[in-house]
């Protein structure tokens, strides 16, 4: 994740629906931006992974090869490869251009909830409901993982990777941060099953969402609570949360069909963006611009700020 350079204009929230993609792949389990935010990936419950241009709404490629629904995907830093994990317990490494399966890593005992590349796309980290995180080596041909992080006592719902850390949220109510540089494991108890975690873009805080309908902003180094964000509904489902492109706002899905925006510092609700009648199950925030993707049911919505003007017509 690159640090965004400061921009003169004030923070604007994406609240104008720019585009709605009917993905045609069953329920969209997850929607993810690529590294520069120009493309997005949707993980479908029909075992396919699709690559889109979200602004134009064009489908670029479909990746099929999973044996079950795809639950999460990520793109590499150089946009050359993708990884995905799904209900078939496999982690798949894809070649973007050819659409072929490069590697298929098997070893998880349960479905894979979340996958991430490391910074150089040499390792794939996958978290599964078998309460383990496995680190798969993309460079060698080894079939077994480099390391298995099995400290979690319950399923791993979210994994995020920085240059030297692995942040993992588990259903056992703990956020574990593995610091490779220090060789230490920091385990923060939150209590409620954790659905999503993420680093702030300055790398000093972690955002944790849990099933008690609360998001918490924790200091990364001390584990202290910096902020708490409530108002949305998250009691049963694994929903995503994230921070806005400049760390000004906290964004979370909700089960009542809205996306909630809170001011990060004040903790006040800034915007409740109505998306639709169902559950907003996944969202992704553009790395540098106020652009939001939400997934509800079988479609993906693309949101921009009010002032945004589309450069060209619908593609």
């Amino acid at each position, binding site marked *: 994740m690159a640090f965004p350079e400061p921009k003169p204009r004030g923070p604007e929230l994406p609240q104008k629906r720019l585009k709605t993609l*009917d993905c*045609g792949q*069953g*329920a969209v*389990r997850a929607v993810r931006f690529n590294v520069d935010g120009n493309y997005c990936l949707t993980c*479908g419950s*029909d*075992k396919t992974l699709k690559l889109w241009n979200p602004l134009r709404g064009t489908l670029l490629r*479909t990746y099929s090869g999973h044996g079950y629904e795809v*639950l999460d995907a990520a793109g590499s830093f150089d946009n050359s490869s993708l990884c995905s994990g799904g209900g078939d317990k496999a982690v798949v490494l894809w070649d973007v251009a050819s659409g072929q399966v490069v590697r298929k890593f098997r070893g998880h*005992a*349960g*479905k894979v909830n979340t996958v991430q590349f*490391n*910074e*150089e796309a*040499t*390792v794939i980290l996958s978290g599964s*409901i078998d309460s383990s995180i496995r680190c798969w*080596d993309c*460079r060698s041909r080894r079939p077994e993982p*480099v*390391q*298995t*992080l*099995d*400290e979690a006592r*319950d399923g791993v719902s979210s994994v995020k990777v920085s*240059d*030297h850390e692995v942040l993992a949220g588990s*259903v056992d*109510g703990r956020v574990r941060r*593995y*610091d*490779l540089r*220090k*060789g*230490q*494991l920091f*385990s*923060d*108890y*939150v*209590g409620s*099953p954790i*659905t999503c975690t993420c680093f702030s873009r300055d790398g000093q805080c972690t955002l944790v969402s849990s099933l008690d309908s609360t998001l*918490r902003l924790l200091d990364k180094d*001390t*584990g*202290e609570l910096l902020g708490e964000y409530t108002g949305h509904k998250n009691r*049963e*489902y*694994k929903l995503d949360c994230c921070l806005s492109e400049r760390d000004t706002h906290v964004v979370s899905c909700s089960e009542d*069909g809205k996306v909630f925006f809170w001011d990060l510092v004040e903790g006040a609700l800034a915007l409740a963006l109505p998306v639709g*009648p*169902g*559950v907003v*199950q996944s969202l992704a925030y553009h790395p540098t611009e106020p652009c939001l993707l939400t997934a509800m*049911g*079988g479609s993906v919505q693309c949101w921009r700020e009010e002032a945004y003007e589309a450069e060209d017509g619908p593609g």
Partner: protein
Amino acid sequence: MAAQDSDSDEDLVSYGTGLEPLEEGERPKKPIPLQDQTVRDEKGRYKRFHGAFSGGFSAGYFNTVGSKEGWTPSSFVSSRQNRADRSVLGPEDFMDEEDLSEFGIAPKAIVTTDDFASKTKDRIREKARQLAAATAPIPGATLLDDLITPAKLSVGFELLRKMGWKEGQGIGPRVKRRPRRQKPDPGVKVYGCALPPGGSEGSEDEDDDYLPENVTFAPKDVTPVDFTPKDNVHGLAYKGLDPRQALFGTSGEHFNLFGEGPEGASNLLGDIGVNKGRKLGISGQAFGVGALEEEDDDIYATETLSKYDTVLKDEEPGDGLYGWTAPKQYKSQKESEKDLRYVGKILDGFSLASKPLSSKKIYPPPELPRDYRPVHYFRPVVAASSENSHLLQVLSESAGKPMHDPGTHSRHQLNASKRGELLGETPIKGSATSVLEFLSQKDKERIKEMKQATDLKAAQVKARSLAQHASGSRAQPLPADVGHCSWHVALSGGTATTRASSFKPFAKDPEKQKRYEEFLVNMKRGRKDALEQCLDPSMTEWERGRERDEFSRAALLYVSSHSTLSSRFTHAKEEDDSDQVEVPRDQENDVSDKQSAVKMKMFGTLTRDTFEWHPDKLLCKRFNVPDPYPDSTLVGLPRVKRDKYSVFNFLTLQETASLPPAQGSSEKVPQPRAPDKSRKPSRWDTSKQEKKEDSISEFLSLARSKVGPPKQESSPSVKKEEEHVTESLSDQMVNKEVDSQPEGEGSRPSMDLFKAIFASSSDEKSSSSEDEQGDSEDDQAGVREADFKSSQETDLVETSSGAHDSKLPPQDPAPSFPIQKMQIDQREEFGPRLPPVFCPNARQKLETPQKEKHKKNKEKHKTKKEHRRRKEKKKKHRKHKHKGKQKNKKSEKSSSSESTDSSDSQSDDEGTADLSPQELLRRLKRLPLRRQ
């Protein structure tokens, strides 16, 4: 573009000479053979080696001895118009140019000029100077030269001089007259070499009278020790003939003062001739007076005693005022004085060091004990037995340690707790060796009494059944003998039956029990005839044989039932290892504290645990991070105990993959075992395993009945057993498949045991919270437990192969693919679930699969409670409704743009009803392709 390209080409920097590009079809050049390779100099001339006398490489002109002009050198030509310039030829004119090169004999290189060279003169020049001085017309003249030496001093000299140093003085801060006699001030730093402490105190008063307080002196100059090695065979301090004396006849004694005078080397040779008239010859010690000597002065050098020191005294000559300078200022401060002494003379830009140079500390080698012998020899190992105990004692005495009295164990036989006892430590809570020690006192008692009851009961049952078995097998004496051997091996194999007394299988018959105990004692001693000895001689042969069998099996039984528990509750092997880091448990210990902390929103230290964690080396490499523990081979958390006591590992501990069905009650023992026996290769194995399984399940069921309400039906293991009894063969196949899964979870002990042991577990909470969503209307404990169990099993079924999956549908009257998918989805769910596919009626969908899950379980396990059956019907009903809804949707599919894909699969499903699974699979595979 093109211009840019050429520009960029010019910017390129290339090193070396590029190889010529090979022409098409051209052969690469052959390497030159060794004999054709020649050495040439830079002018292209051959260099050949000529041999030692002809000058090595390329002597002369083109390998001739001659010059460019040939053999005759150029003749001297001088005319009036053209005067030959008189050139002075130096040695260089006669040298080859190679000699002047870097590797020649006279290389021309940059060297330090004399201005910057140190004062140490080279030996040749010095000797030449001495010679010159000796032969100078005025013998002392060179001394003058020395005094008026031009500024040839080295830079270091000049710097020192500017700092106030004078020749002849030592270097360092000025000191008091007798620094040794001053009391060493601990606060004062000592620069340079510390003076030796102490000294004679008595003579202090003698010079204090005329020296003012603050007069300081430069330190004495230190004459460096001459480390000239002795490389001759003369006696010590022998000085051979002085060449000056030998050549020029001057007696060295007199001219010693002037001998060091500097002089140029150039006039050395020329001057010798001038001095021809002077006396020559050899003079000196032991040569007598020669004929050419005119005067016979001091032929035999007389040594007087006055030349020697007779008293040990200070080297300091005279009054000790050597290098004395008049005091500049008188100051009373003693502390700053040392610094100020230098103030006027410290160079600009420099300051006095505040810290002395740290001197290297040298530690003395450790003192050897007085009786240390620097020889080690290995004592022969003598096993302790009766005949060589004397030898042992002798050996141990020779080793210097007293013989241990037999009561105490040797050090290596003690474990940590015993050592702690010896040291008088209070036993540590954390280092309990068994899970049972973590239980509260009440629980312990309860378990204990249950265990006793169970043991007794089980043993009796076992013994009885074994006896029956034995009586059945009396006819064949051979297998009994085999058994005899095997139990002997098994029993004497190590599991010492020390606690056998607590186990009384024949309590009803005290005589028999006594015999049995005797047998055990004999067994322990390792006697082969243990059995025969203890048996009652008055018994008949048949009775004896029977009792023999009973005893042997009872003994076996004891071992196995005891080892059942020990196999589950592993003792910590790392207890004795001090290098094992005992990190507090991540999970169970203080979750309640943390929960309260979370409630109070006191995140931070209260909710954080920090562990040492070792990443894999390769992972570090891939992350471009240095390995934080470069010399550790450990990966992960450095705790081993964690694994042992983890509930999760516990659940998967069962290594016996295909266990016979668990026995709920002891009454049903013999019947269901019969088919299992046929599978087992060895009877003894079977009995062992059965016993293991039986005793533990009995223990569990008893525990359950005591812990919870005495509901026999709700106990899963009983249920399971019944199911197994009534289940069809196909279901057994399913179970086998399940068992052979890598998880091996097929025959877990019930959750109750773990609940009983780990009273407050976070895992239970999380699983229950998940369950609450579905069956809130159900009655609580039993059903949830059943849920857990069944969800485990269905899960396992799920994890088995897809082919197996396709086997299941026939049970379902009308399976529809998407529904099934949803079911599986929901069943696999442990944590937060995935949102439903279709948003508008999300609630409804959410309910349905949850129920279906129950339904499915029930289809598999048909013996369930009555009200649940009713519920099942209800659910079936609901499910039909659900299907109807889907059909509705399908009908409106054409108009709505919603999810063409799902309609796709639905249309497939329509055909599925009368399609073979293979066909279905084939179609499914084709699906994505078609979409592309």
